[in-house]
């Protein structure tokens, strides 16, 4: 049941990402909490959302150049984390979350390959439209634009649950085999989150961007530490 729900969420996100709307609903910051909520662990999705959003902040579709499939990656990672937690009988923790990223993130690269295939298939829809118009089937020539929504939906709906299933199978094994790894893995989660912030800043290409990144980083870190001491 969980896998069906995850497939549906991932498929709809893949459609929103390019074919319809593009209003950030398929960005990791929205999709991770949604997928977590749909699977019964909204807090787990909320744990993953900020690092994944920042990590893939530069995943944008410029002209014909394709980015990695950040929505598919997010759905697979969140699904894998929540389902692994379910298998272990706990909510998503940082150690589960970081393992889910390590196991499932590469599916985002696979998603880009699939996107290229889809562009090829869509050429057939274009040919179909030209043929329909030549045969005076005007309604069909216009409507067939929507046929292109099916393939991205199907691909994400299949690949996200598959990758999540791998993560949900591997993560409980790892954590049961090496219970001592939980502490270091938790640190690994924060290292990954730190890198995600760097990736986000790097994606914002302005001459002043490095200065702003390092200045606010240092300033906020000092401020938070002082506040923490005072408490």
């Amino acid at each position: 049941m969980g896998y069906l729900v995850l497939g549906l969420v991932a498929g709809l996100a893949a459609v929103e990402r390019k074919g319809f709307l593009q209003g950030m609903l398929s960005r990791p910051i929205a999709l991770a909490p949604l997928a977590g909520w749909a699977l019964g662990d909204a807090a787990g999705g909320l744990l993953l959302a900020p690092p994944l959003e920042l990590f893939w902040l530069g995943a944008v579709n410029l002209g014909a150049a394709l980015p990695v499939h950040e929505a598919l990656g997010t759905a697979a990672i969140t699904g894998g984390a929540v389902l692994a937690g379910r298998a272990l009988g706990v909510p998503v923790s940082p150690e589960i979350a970081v393992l889910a990223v390590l196991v499932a993130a590469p599916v985002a690269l696979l998603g880009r390959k699939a996107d290229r295939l889809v562009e090829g298939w869509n050429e057939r829809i274009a040919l179909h439209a030209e043929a329909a118009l030549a045969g005076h089937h005007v309604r069909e020539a216009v409507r067939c634009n929507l046929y292109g929504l099916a393939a991205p939906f199907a691909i994400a709906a299949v690949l996200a649950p598959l990758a999540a299933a791998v993560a949900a199978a591997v993560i409980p094994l790892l954590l049961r085999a090496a219970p001592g790894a939980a502490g270091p893995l938790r640190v690994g989660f924060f290292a990954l989150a730190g890198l995600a912030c760097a990736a986000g800043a790097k994606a914002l290409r302005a001459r002043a961007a490095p200065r702003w990144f390092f200045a606010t980083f240092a300033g906020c870190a000092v401020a938070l530490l002082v506040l923490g001491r005072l408490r």
Partner: protein
Amino acid sequence: MISLVRVDNRLLHGQILETWVPRLGIDQVVVADDDAADSELAKAAMTLCVPPSLPVRIEPIDRVDFGGLAAGRDKVLLLVRDPAGLERARAAGLTPALVRKVNLGNLHFEPGRKQVTPSVFLSAAELDELRSLAAQGFEVEARAIPSEPPTGMADIERRYAAGR
């Protein structure tokens, strides 16, 4: 100097401004196109999309001073719409001594054109024009953005022969 001649049906757009201009350190873009030079709309739109630090000149092909651009200190990216424009630029004085590299960026599908890269479709007449450019000494390549591997003349010929 003229750093690159770019052939692109869409003339000035994101791929050129976001990738080629920074990669080559371009100081000035010259759009050699009669239709664009004749259209207030085209001139306004192209001026609008570039940062103030990058001057753009839009001129009819016959009016472009290729020798002057090649002798100047600014690094120039010369933009033409299609291989027919290249042919006219050659007739107006563009030679391999002024610029070596000719890049085919986006030539869109039309009936009778065959695909040689994901973004370049060529007609038989256009292929002839490219052959004659290469024979004259221009280095012809096809790619949309600089991070892609270039497709040279030999591959273009091969893919055209195999194309549908």
